[in-house]
């Protein structure tokens, strides 16, 4: 939803969106995902749970994350039609995004339009590559000095968004520590799920979950933590969208 909205919306409108609103929205999304994940912290990954998480990320326009969970579901049940269907949907979405990205890239060269570079940056940012997005915007500012205010505004939004996301993760991490310390396992599971929703694949998220697991060694399912840890490779790999 988010990426379609963003790509279809003018990027200037995107720049005007309050980052705090964006962040608040993500935090609420986090709650929904956390509820899906909560039982898996005890029982371990289930086909239904993994598919639900895949669907969640696909609906939230984070196809790479969605693919990872569909693949995990397929690994558990190689005959799962739902998992294959999910992967096909992800591939469609990624193809669509790739085409959009390539078209914007071509258009930026042919029409010399700063808007195309901004749209490319928006795709990169919302696929989880803020550094790549900022790099594109920096190039846009050099290439189109007359209209540099447009990529500049978008860059400010992105930087602010990253900062707020970091702040939110810090808050959730501390709340997770508190709940863990106080022995509130269920509350801690929800907070861990919310951290995953916002910072899936980030090393600090994985570290916080490992700490949660260490404090509840008998309760937290090792296999599930292993699945979550595997997402770090998404952030460790370079941007997958073709330029």
């Amino acid at each position: 939803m988010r990426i379609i909205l963003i790509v279809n919306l003018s990027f200037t409108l995107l720049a005007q969106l309050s980052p705090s609103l964006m962040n608040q929205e993500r935090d609420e999304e986090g709650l929904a995902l956390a509820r899906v994940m909560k039982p898996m912290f005890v029982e371990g990954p289930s086909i239904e749970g993994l598919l639900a998480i895949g669907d969640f990320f696909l609906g939230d326009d984070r196809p790479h994350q969605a693919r990872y969970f569909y693949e995990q579901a397929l690994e558990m049940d190689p005959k799962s039609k739902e998992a294959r269907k999910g992967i096909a949907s992800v591939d469609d979405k990624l193809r669509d995004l790739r085409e959009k990205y390539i078209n914007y890239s071509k258009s930026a060269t042919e029409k010399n339009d700063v808007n195309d570079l901004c749209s490319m940056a928006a795709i990169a940012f919302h696929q989880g590559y803020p550094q790549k997005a900022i790099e594109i915007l920096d190039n846009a500012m050099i290439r189109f000095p007359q209209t540099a205010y447009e990529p500049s505004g978008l860059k400010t939004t992105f930087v602010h968004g990253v900062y707020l996301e970091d702040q939110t993760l810090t808050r959730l991490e501390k709340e997770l520590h508190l709940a863990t310390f106080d022995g509130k396992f269920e509350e801690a599971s929800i907070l861990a799920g919310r951290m995953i929703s916002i910072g899936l694949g980030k090393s600090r998220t994985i570290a916080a979950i490992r700490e949660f697991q260490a404090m509840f060694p008998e309760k937290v399912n090792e296999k599930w933590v292993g699945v979550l840890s595997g997402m770090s490779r998404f952030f460790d790999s370079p941007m997958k969208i073709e330029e």
Partner: protein
Amino acid sequence: MLSIPWLSVFLFNGALIKLEQSQFTLEGIKPASAHILSTAYENTADEDVSVRLVVDTCPCSTKLNKVEIPKAIGSELTIRKGDRDSFLMEFRAPLAGAFDDYVSLKFVGLTSGREEIVRIAITGRIIQTHKASLNEVVFNDESGTEPIAVAITDLNDQPLDIRINVVDPPILDVVAKPGEMVFSLNEHAFAQAGRPLSGTVEYTYLYDKVMVMDSFPFQVNLSSPCDVEPGLALFGRIEEDYDQIQRVFLHCKDVDLVGVLHQPDYVATKFARMRDKYVVMIRLTKKPPHRFSDDVLLATTNPERPVRIKVTGQVMKWAGEGNQ
């Protein structure tokens, strides 16, 4: 021996009062011995000058027992234009070691109001009255943690009767025996492992019917059995409920954590093993002092090697209360 070189060089041109000597060197004097120091003066100004002893920051105020100023009224003297005489100072030597003291005199021209402060320096060294088998006691990972004995004898190698006055900081236990001091680490030293510590032991003995006090230096540099990451539990500015917890990691070498030895009354500590390290969570259980800096001490499988975690922060706002 007392040595007072007779200087012909005066302090500076145009001085209100010219002093013959402003530096006294007393090498090899006995502990606590008294010495009369004398320096001639001449009022070369065109006016009468008042003289006052300034004992401002001078550490010798305790050692330089008095300054006798001829014809002084109270502690102040007026030296008439052209007068010559001498200042006498009684200097009481310290009990041991080198000294570098001074006393200041303030001259004020009574007509012009011009002021000058002149410093008279007194330096020197007390004669050696005893011998020690070591210059310094050092406890570190190489030297180990076993007690270290230091022999203390007079110059004829006869054991001295030593008495321990104070160990500062009190991270060592020092026992005096006839002719020696035995140093051993105590729990305070182990609790502060990981940071370099140094101090002195102050001790006394009788020399030539005078009770002499001296000090002996020591260093303690023990490595902590666990590295704390980050270096301390830094709560920073506490404004929200979720600021009431901090987490650190411990990378332990040859020990395991077994419990909490000590923690401030406003703190609770829990820890758990995480593969090759420990996660330690430190929670504020009640409102700490506005600015707090304390230690949490965790026991390890080696009873002598606890792990210290510094806990620090500042309460800006506490749940249910307003800003601090």
